[in-house]
């Protein structure tokens, strides 16, 4: 392995984390919960609001986001030296942190906040606001009934089953494994164990995907404090160093159904983010002790296992079925908090928090002696990834 990217590798650290409860209806606005979790993350780090000089947030196509102006005013910040939104929703689970790393490693800022608040339990589904006239590539999709992410994913999932012999039982195993992890996690929304038979018996949402192959719809918010490795060493928590940070889009991409326009729909963004995040960290798949993969629908975990090099294309189905992502026995425990399938749907920010907990030694499915964690954002949209180490 190479020595990695000397400008980025281990130059910054996650110093604090904050989260709300995860519930169906939190009863507060996304702006309120954003501020709450930022305060909590700052307290966790042992920093004051006035130490913050950078804010990075998530953008989602078709959705309003909370402005940095409002966050800065309401935190009482004297100045903001760097800010920005990173687009593509679940693909930006790590993206705002990637930008925070760049700002801090280059000296543009000293303490950055990355946050995501989403009321997707009490709020409306974005696709339900589809207008009477639809533009962009969706003009060639929505009139045929292809409107929501689950149908877009189902098209890719069916082709994946056909090309590689992957089964619905193997998709279901992802949900079953993650529910077993969630059963130990008091924050998790769903904690009752389920079986493969339960997943297959749950109602069909978009053939071949059943209800229990799909993410939760919850309200919640998460915040993360990023600062220099040097400064983090003097703060309250054991620093979690950011060894690798990357974004990746790949060629000729649209949003989720765009995969169907490419010559090879399995030429997905995470393969590009993987190459760069490993190069940045000077590491490979063999160095990873635990992984948190974006999992809005169960097949997405399989695609990330392949893209991040834990198995060959088409081999993730058997990999999952053999228990290799299970905690504690599997070689690569995945989504040890329960993920979007069982803990909460916060656009993958809760996955970053779980990566941090694993390295602090505070996960409810703690991987013994975990030293390196991979966190990866959504597989079928322009994506992002982090390699964290203690």
């Amino acid at each position: 392995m190479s020595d990695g990217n000397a400008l980025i590798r281990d130059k910054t650290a996650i110093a604090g984390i904050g989260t709300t409860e995860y519930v169906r209806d939190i009863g507060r606005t996304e702006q309120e919960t954003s501020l709450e979790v930022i305060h909590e993350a700052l307290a966790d780090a042992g920093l004051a609001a006035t130490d913050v000089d950078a804010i990075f947030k998530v953008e989602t196509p078709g959705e309003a986001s909370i402005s940095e102006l409002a966050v800065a005013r309401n935190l009482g910040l004297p100045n903001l030296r760097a800010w920005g939104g990173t687009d593509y929703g679940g693909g930006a689970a790590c993206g705002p942190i990637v930008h925070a790393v760049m700002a801090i490693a280059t000296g543009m800022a000293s303490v950055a906040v990355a946050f995501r608040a989403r009321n997707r339990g009490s709020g409306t589904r974005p696709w339900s606001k589809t207008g009477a006239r639809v533009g962009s590539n969706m003009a060639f999709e929505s009139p045929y009934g292809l409107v929501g992410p689950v149908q877009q994913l189902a098209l890719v999932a069916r082709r994946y089953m056909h090309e590689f012999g992957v089964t619905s039982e193997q998709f279901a195993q992802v949900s079953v494994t993650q529910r077993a992890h969630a059963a130990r996690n008091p924050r998790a929304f769903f904690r009752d164990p389920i079986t493969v038979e339960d997943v297959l018996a749950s109602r069909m949402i978009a053939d071949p995907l059943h209800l229990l192959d799909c993410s939760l719809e919850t309200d919640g918010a998460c915040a993360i404090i990023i600062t220099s490795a040097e400064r983090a060493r003097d703060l309250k928590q054991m620093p979690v160093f950011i060894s690798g940070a990357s974004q990746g889009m790949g060629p000729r991409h649209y949003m989720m159904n765009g995969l169907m326009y490419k010559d090879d729909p399995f030429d997905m963004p995470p393969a590009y983010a993987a190459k760069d995040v490993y190069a940045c960290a000077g590491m490979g798949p063999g160095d990873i002790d635990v992984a948190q993969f974006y999992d809005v629908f169960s097949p997405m975990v399989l695609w990330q296992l392949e893209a991040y090099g834990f198995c060959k294309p088409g081999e993730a189905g058997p990999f999952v079925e053999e228990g290799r992502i299970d905690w504690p026995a599997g070689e690569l425990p995945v989504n040890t908090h329960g993920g979007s399938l069982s803990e909460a749907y916060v656009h993958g920010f809760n996955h970053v928090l779980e990566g941090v907990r694993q390295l602090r030694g505070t996960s409810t499915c703690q991987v013994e002696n975990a030293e390196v964690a991979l966190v990866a954002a959504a597989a079928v949209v322009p994506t992002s990834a982090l390699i964290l180490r203690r």
Partner: protein
Amino acid sequence: MTMLADRPLPEITPLTEPFWAAARERRLVMQRCDDCKAYRFPPEVGCYACSSMNSAWEPVSGRATLYTWTAAYPPLLPYFAERAPWPIAVVQLDEGPRLTTNIVDVPYEEYVFGMALQADFQQLDDEVALVVFRRAD
């Protein structure tokens, strides 16, 4: 206030108008790069294969094979919810590009990978004719 969709219809732009104009005449056309001859769909200003901004619309055969499919169940937009489960297909034209579409004369249980299909047209209003597919003879 945006009007919410019953069945959403395409927004027709100067870039996409040639596609929809041809569909109104029951013809299927595809945008093709003048320089490297790559077909591209959906329509774009520049070529994904060679970056050229020169392109023309060319008739294609309408012959295609079934590439993948799903059936959508509620919750859905009202039009599709009332008709659920609602089948959606992706087909690959013999010329290469893939389209999202509906297959109009094949029961869902009979969908098979690679099934031979032929383009047809479904006039929804004065402006919009959707490109749909039927089983090829």
